[in-house]
């Protein structure tokens, strides 16, 4: 019901806000004496407000809205949408980083399939010379939307999804730093995707994913949709990056120094910095294009004082770092996979980490190598050539470190390892053609040919996509608790690897012979090779189906996966598969390197897993101690059993008074429990002190009750309050429960809906007593 509710609300809020925005804008235009309808302006406002409306309707802003208007933040909004208990929970706003990670991956693969279908459309058109299925204009739309989806809706967010699932567990945290922001970041993605895909409903944007002016300014309506899609995807990306940075900086488990972080964490640290500093530039560039389109500004219009080349500078100042945004997390995944599946410590850990950062820094100094033929200032070419080639050094360091890691390792050729090896081979090819393209004369000769197409696909498909596959196979058991089918996985790898190389390797030849990219037709002498490429591209597309079947079927009815199928050292493998809701019972203690494979006695972390609760020995009150067993049972069952649950407020006067009130009407015996597992407190304070303080409060409360003549026993339990109550209910069912908490704004239990959950779970009357506790002894 909730599922239907939130989606219905999302759709009508989106529709309402979109229509309202359109009407208001048209009204204002009409009043100020302009034509009411202008396609660009109206489309922009519809997409902006309908997109925001969707995220509001689906529920991303509910909590913040309460906060904004100064309301005490509602109790049911914190962890109630945390964790997934059935498949339906994946369709709701969820604040659990593990659920969001899976949501990201599934969504991105949907857009991967759409983008892939567009590519197959292009290959169908290009299979033979001449015009077959698509007009040149539609063909332009196909490759533009293909690239836009693959970059902004697949590669970048797929890495964000893997990082979302893995990074918090790897650093020993319970979640991301800002779980609600994390949810909002995810829900902006479908909006961005819809903006881009729905441009086919009008006229698709056709200026390529680089959206160069003046094509972008004078292009069809779809251009506006592209701009808005990029803004949503960019906002999502920046929010996630800020989240990752804060999480990694502030939430590492005790003992996890920077030099003990797994390399995937290093990679995400560098990538997130690139996103935070780079993505605003593409946002700025696209805003300027949008203003040129709908407000007729002159940023890129030389007749009005603007400059066309300026667009390319601003665009590439983001989009070259974006290349590393799309590659560095992949490097991180490969470092994990290769070390674990070769059973050897990673070679040159510090150098890999440093070269990751170096690539990030250098990435901001090379942007103009995309503009060698643009007519920019010629002196800029030489320094850009040198910095571009310099990036090969840190990349080479990584490449040789991975090879040295595998050297004399005990290599297990599982599917993730196969994809990692495939990546090493294809990425080297892409890297080498990259060096070719960095050299100015070669670049001038091969500009806008299929040589560039081959290069980009060797680094983005042979690079990024292979690492995404490696990562998904590697962490599939952790994410789902099921093993994937190894046979199908290997079939998928070999189909992909062979078909990929057969598709893109021949494009190098085509490019060198002068076949132009981004054109729907070509000279007939290239016919044979293009036909071969198209056949191979279809096989490559079909290989994805093997992957999807494997994932879906294994998740549904695969073999149950053990907690640590790869015998890995990093933290995410030290918890169950899938991990428990807050990942760890207690913050783990990090004691060593994450990669000490094959080193006898080496440990990365000490993870404490709480044993299942032992029945507590309840101290027997003095009056009962002398009685026989039968007498005791008779006395006990005659008394009404009241369970009191409290922690900070256990010795508060109001609670004692509430219990004494009951004792005046019925003979009662009281059990007091003080649950002691607060996930927010456990991080900062000394546990022994907390426990001692709690014991002191409890003793005070018990004394006060006994003084009033009430049979009272009590103990401190190291459990969360809900489980602790359920344990007592099972063992010695009370007839009533009294819960005492701090006021709404300061109570962690209320934030987690304790009262409602107890009523639902026990079906017993639950009374809630609120006390302030300034006089309590605190740790």
């Amino acid at each position, binding site marked *: 019901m909730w599922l239907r509710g939130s989606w219905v609300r999302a759709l009508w809020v989106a529709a309402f806000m979109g229509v309202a925005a359109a009407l208001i804008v048209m009204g204002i235009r009409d009043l100020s004496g302009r034509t009411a309808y202008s396609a660009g302006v109206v489309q922009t406002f519809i997409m902006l407000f309908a997109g925001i409306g969707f995220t509001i309707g689906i529920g991303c802003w509910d909590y913040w809205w309460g906060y904004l208007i100064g309301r005490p933040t509602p109790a049911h909004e914190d962890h109630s949408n945390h964790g997934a208990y059935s498949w339906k929970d994946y369709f709701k706003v969820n604040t659990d980083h593990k659920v969001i990670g899976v949501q990201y991956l599934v969504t991105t693969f949907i857009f991967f399939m759409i983008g892939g279908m567009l590519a197959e459309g292009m290959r169908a058109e290009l299979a033979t010379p001449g015009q077959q299925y698509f007009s040149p204009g539609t063909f332009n739309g196909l490759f533009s939307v293909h690239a836009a989806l693959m970059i902004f809706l697949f590669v970048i967010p797929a890495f964000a999804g893997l990082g979302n699932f893995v990074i918090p567990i790897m650093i020993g945290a319970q979640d991301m*730093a800002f779980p609600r922001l994390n949810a909002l970041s995810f829900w902006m993605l479908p909006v961005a995707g819809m903006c881009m895909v729905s441009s086919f409903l009008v006229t698709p944007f056709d200026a390529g994913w680089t959206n160069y002016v003046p094509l972008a300014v004078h292009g069809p309506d779809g251009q506006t949709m592209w701009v808005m899609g990029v803004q949503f995807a960019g906002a999502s990306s920046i929010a996630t990056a*800020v*989240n990752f940075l*804060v999480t990694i900086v502030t939430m590492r488990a005790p003992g996890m120094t920077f030099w003990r972080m797994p390399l995937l964490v290093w990679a995400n640290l560098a990538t997130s910095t690139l996103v935070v*500093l780079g993505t605003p530039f593409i946002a700025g*560039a696209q805003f300027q294009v949008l203003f040129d389109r709908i*407000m*007729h*500004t002159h940023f890129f219009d030389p007749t*009005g004082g603007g400059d066309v080349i300026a667009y390319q500078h601003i665009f590439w100042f983001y989009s070259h770092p974006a290349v590393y945004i799309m590659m560095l997390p992949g490097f991180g995944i490969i470092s994990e996979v290769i070390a674990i599946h070769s059973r050897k410590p990673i070679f040159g850990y510090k150098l890999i980490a440093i070269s990751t950062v170096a690539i990030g820094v250098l990435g901001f100094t090379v942007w103009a190598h995309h503009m060698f033929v643009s007519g920019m200032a010629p002196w800029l070419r030489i320094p850009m050539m040198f910095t571009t080639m310099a990036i090969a050094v840190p990349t080479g360091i990584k490449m040789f470190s991975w090879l040295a890691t595998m050297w004399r390792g005990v290599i297990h050729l599982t599917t993730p390892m196969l994809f990692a090896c495939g990546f090493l081979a294809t990425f080297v090819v892409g890297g080498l053609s990259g060096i070719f393209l960095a050299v100015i004369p070669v670049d001038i000769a091969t500009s806008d040919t299929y040589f560039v197409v081959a290069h980009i696909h060797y680094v983005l498909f042979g690079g990024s996509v292979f690492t995404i596959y490696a990562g998904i196979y590697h962490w599939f058991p952790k994410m789902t608790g099921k093993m994937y089918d190894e046979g199908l996985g290997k079939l998928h790898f070999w189909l992909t690897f062979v078909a990929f190389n057969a598709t893109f390797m021949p494009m190098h030849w085509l490019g060198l012979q002068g076949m132009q990219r981004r054109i729907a037709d070509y000279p007939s002498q290239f016919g044979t090779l293009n036909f071969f490429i198209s056949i191979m591209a279809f096989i490559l597309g079909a290989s994805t189906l093997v992957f999807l079947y494997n994932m879906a079927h294994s998740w549904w009815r695969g073999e149950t996966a053990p907690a640590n199928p790869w015998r890995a050292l990093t933290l995410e493998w030290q918890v169950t598969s899938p991990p428990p809701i807050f990942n760890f019972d207690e913050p783990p203690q990090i004691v060593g390197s994450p990669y000490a494979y094959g080193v006898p006695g080496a440990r990365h972390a000490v993870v404490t897993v709480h044993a299942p609760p032992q029945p507590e020995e309840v101290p027997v009150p003095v009056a009962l101690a002398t009685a026989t067993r039968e007498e005791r049972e008779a006395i006990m069952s005659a008394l009404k059993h009241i369970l009191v649950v409290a922690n900070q407020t256990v010795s508060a006067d109001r609670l004692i008074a509430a219990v004494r009130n009951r004792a005046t009407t019925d003979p009662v015996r009281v059990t007091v429990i003080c649950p002691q597992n607060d996930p927010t407190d456990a991080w900062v304070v000394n546990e022994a002190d907390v426990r001692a303080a709690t014991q002191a409060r409890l003793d005070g409360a018990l004394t006060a009750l006994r003084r009033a003549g009430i049979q009272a026993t009590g103990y401190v339990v190291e459990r969360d309050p809900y489980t602790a109550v359920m344990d007592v209910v099972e063992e010695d069912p009370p007839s009533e429960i009294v819960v005492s908490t701090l006021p709404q704004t300061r109570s962690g239990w209320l934030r987690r809906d304790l009262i409602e959950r107890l009523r639902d779970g026990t079906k017993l009357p639950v009374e809630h007593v609120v006390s302030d506790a300034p006089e309590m002894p605190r740790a």
Partner: protein
Amino acid sequence: MSAHVATADGHHHADGAPVSAYHESLLRSPVFLGMIMFLGSEIMLFGSFFTIFFYMRFTHSPWPPEGVEIPKEATGINTAILISSSFTMHWALVSIKRDRRFGLVVGLFLTLAMGLTFLSLQVHEYLNLGFTPSNNGFASGFFSLTGLHGMHVFVGATLLSIAFLRACRGHYSGAEHIGLEVTGLYWHFVDVVWILLYTVVYLL
């Protein structure tokens, strides 16, 4: 930051009790750190608009184009108003750190009032400029930079209104006022950007 940062090493409360490591530095606070990172991306967003502005400026002369007049002096007064609002913001923050509610509420009110004054004077300036974004490159850059900044002032004023509302309801204390720290940081950022913007767009 605790109320007693003035003590010698900042690690102890005035009464000598140790402060847990968590409270040592604002940079340990996820919200504050997150705002710093976000402001990093804001700097880059403004940077992209400054880039195109400089690009046009250094490839065209005269600059600003003939016939374009911008009110330097009136906006100078407006600049002074905005800069003053940073000081009242600081006053509000210092007051709550010492648990003085009067300074908090009045400081926030003055900050908000000056922010709104700035905004309305900007709107007034827009209406009386005599040129529009589509006139020429300078006008495009002028309106986009001041407009982008105006949007940030608007967001800042929204944050201040929320803080003001909460302060009036008795929220915040000497120990807990991270929401104010973050709002203040954002407000100072908006202020600093304006100083740069005024220098680059109006004066140079």
